[in-house]
């Protein structure tokens, strides 16, 4: 036992000082989701990948603390807001144009500092035993109606939720956003820690509808196929139909900038894009790659016309959430 412990210790110490072609990635994306894909990158390019997995916001905060002394070359983040916070702090370097150009301008940084790798749509998940899809409103704004009293759930600390509120502010104005937040609270909305907890509560019948990202449903159904929960997409162009992205960026001062560029390019190759669509049920962002069969096409989802890089105005959103008593 002790020998094994010492061996582990030695191994951990030695891996901190390994060979030349090792790329260091900070991944705010879950290991269960992207681990296999990163292995494929190593198989394909021969570049070893060391990954620090964590929560996207906490890794972003870590990168801000580490500054130019960061050991990381690449940040693989779960939402555009975190990438925006790092670009505002001057921590990111430009990606090659040919990588950027693979993705629709809506889903990348206008200054070329990050690029979206997959799309994540906001949806209303609902309990199929208690609600019919035809009873659900066309716009997210109508959930302030009193008939939803005691039936709703949200996760206001969640980054995707805050990105949606930012979109709401930008599209409909501060006044409307504030009114919506207060209206939903007046309906006695239940507060959950994250999207997974909302899906779980929907399954138990604790609430009838909740504001989440579209793919949590599929992960939950893998554990329990009989879960009485389904996704509902509000009308195209509505703030509730926002499509946010997971994305990748190269850090300022990356020691392996070349390998990092290869990594970013790899995530936009058909193989990787298909992986996202088939394994994580996200939307591929490169033209020509098929969306998972159970999902409506990205064009039908109709994300509102909005520059995602503007979603980095998180201070304003958090302030609004605090002023309205949501946080």
């Amino acid at each position: 036992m002790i020998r094994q412990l010492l061996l582990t210790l030695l191994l951990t110490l030695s891996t901190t000082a390994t060979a030349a072609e090792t790329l260091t990635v900070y991944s705010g994306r879950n290991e269960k989701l992207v681990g296999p894909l990163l292995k494929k990158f190593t198989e394909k390019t021969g570049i070893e990948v060391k990954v620090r997995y964590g929560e996207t916001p906490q890794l972003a905060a870590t990168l801000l603390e580490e500054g130019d002394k960061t050991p990381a070359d690449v940040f693989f983040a779960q939402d555009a807001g975190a990438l925006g916070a790092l670009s505002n702090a001057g921590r990111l370097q430009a990606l090659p144009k040919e990588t950027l150009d693979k993705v629709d301008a809506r889903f990348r940084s206008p200054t070329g500092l990050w690029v979206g790798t997959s799309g994540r749509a906001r949806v209303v998940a609902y309990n199929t035993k208690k609600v019919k899809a035809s009873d659900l409103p066309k716009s997210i704004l109508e959930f302030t109606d009193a008939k939803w009293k005691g039936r709703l759930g949200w996760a206001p600390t969640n980054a995707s939720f805050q990105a949606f509120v930012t979109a709401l502010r930008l599209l409909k104005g501060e006044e409307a956003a504030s009114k919506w937040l207060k209206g939903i609270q007046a309906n006695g909305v239940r507060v959950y820690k994250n999207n997974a907890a909302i899906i779980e509560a929907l399954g138990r019948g604790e609430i009838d509808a909740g504001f989440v990202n579209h793919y949590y449903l599929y992960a939950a159904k893998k554990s329990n196929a009989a879960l009485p929960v389904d996704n509902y997409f509000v009308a195209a162009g509505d703030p509730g139909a926002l499509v946010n992205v997971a994305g990748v960026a190269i850090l300022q001062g990356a020691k392996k900038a070349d390998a990092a560029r290869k990594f970013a390019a790899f995530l936009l190759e058909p193989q990787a894009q298909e992986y996202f669509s088939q394994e994580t049920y996200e939307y591929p962002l490169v033209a020509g790659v098929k969306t998972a069969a159970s999902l409506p096409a990205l064009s039908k989802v109709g994300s509102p016309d909005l520059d995602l890089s503007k979603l980095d105005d998180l201070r304003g959103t958090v302030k609004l959430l605090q002023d309205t008593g949501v946080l």
Partner: protein
Amino acid sequence: MTRRPPVGLWVSGWVVAALAVLPAVYLVVRAAEADASTWGLLLRDRTWGLLWRTLGLAAAVTVLAAAVSLPLAWLTTRSDLPGRRVWTVLLCVPLAVPTFVSGYVLLAAFGTGGVLEEALTRWGLPVPPVYGFPGALLALTVSTYPYFFLALRAGLLSQDPAWLEGARSLGLSPARAFWKVTAPLLRPAFVSGALLVGLYVLSDFGAVALLQYDAFSRAIYVQYEGAYDRAYAALLGLALVAVTVVVLVFEVWLRGRAGYHRSSKGAARAVSPVVLGRWRVPALLLCGAVVLAGVVLPVGVLLYWGARGLAEEGGSLLEPALGSVLASVLGAVTSVVGALPLAFLAVRYPSRLTLVMERASYAGYALPPIVLALSLVFLGVQVVPFFYGTLVMLVLAYVVRFLPQAVGTVRASLLQLNPHLGEAAASLGQAPSSVFRRVTLPLLRPGLLAGAALVFLTAMKELPATLLLAPIGFETLATRVWSATAEGRFAEAALPALVLMAVSTLGVGLLVSQEEDAPRG
């Protein structure tokens, strides 16, 4: 009375204390960046509301945990309760259950559509409310009472039986003798337990977030997670440090200046156990109820998750299990070693300075772990880059975070040790180091082991610092559980969580078996 402490002790005490206040230093650096509007946010009414809610929860959990732990500690050390060792180990296990698992347990049991909720409703019984204050109180009490339990046990084990026997021989009934003699002598253990529980509640995030109780630590997380507003988060963190200071000052006042050690050498023998008689069944029921809530229910929920897809868990759990044990054992040993000079200085060389030094060890304890982790990221990169990204940083994080758990228990045992014992050995020509090794250390064993057990168990489930500071690729069971639950894959979380609990049980079992053999003289 006050003598000058040896230089080595003095210096090592300051080094440990300096390490412990690192997170607070970081917070000052970051808070200095705050502008007027950020200060405005801090000073609005909501902050005070949060503060009251958080303090109320901390106080309630502390009282409830103490009420549960005292009978349990007494039963497992002083009575003829059947299976005392097994109960002792089982009663410690809840410390290793991550608080978000305890939260889920409550939800899965009593939440709408939960297993027990359905049964209770069918029988027409009221369902206890899980969200908000009651749920948070229950979940946090179940996961923190072992801090009290272990501290009180160590206190009871190192108490000289002669005191109690003296009281009995003077005609006091067993119950009166307990309240007149045993309980007052446990005051240091009580106080150390209360600090550990109360301040832990201030730092907890997992349970309050899941059970929807709005507390201070949640507000701090929101700033990092949502707004990347490090200045505001630092201000909130400093507010929490200020609360800690107030609590610590209050504790010094509460603690008094009484001596707790006996004046002559006691007999080196065990106290004869109290025969429970007809109290045996209620005693067993109490132990059973606590183990049911803290161990059986979580294991049940985990098995239920696991049954839905145990086959899905890919990869061996050996490596993360070794990683957990390695980091937690290193953290536990280092914390106890670090706690020794602080406890010695505070107990043997009491002065305002040594008191401040000992209190400083609590500086980082009440902070949400993410704050501590980020402070060590900052200091690691800026000050000791050669350690950054190595196991050294992770162990350091565990020490800074869990030091008070070791200091509290070591201090409580040291208070019961007569300094004249060491002086007698010294007068017989023993060198100070030899006195320490051959006399003091063996007598301190219950306290050292209890401290190590606390740190080991808490480190096993630690998450934010482990994710951010461990060498890249270094996995622990807790990070495995996290990576599965974060995406809602509860089935895959079950197996590593069960292994985490099993390994922790083994570890505590090993320590408790040591403790039972310890001299009690």
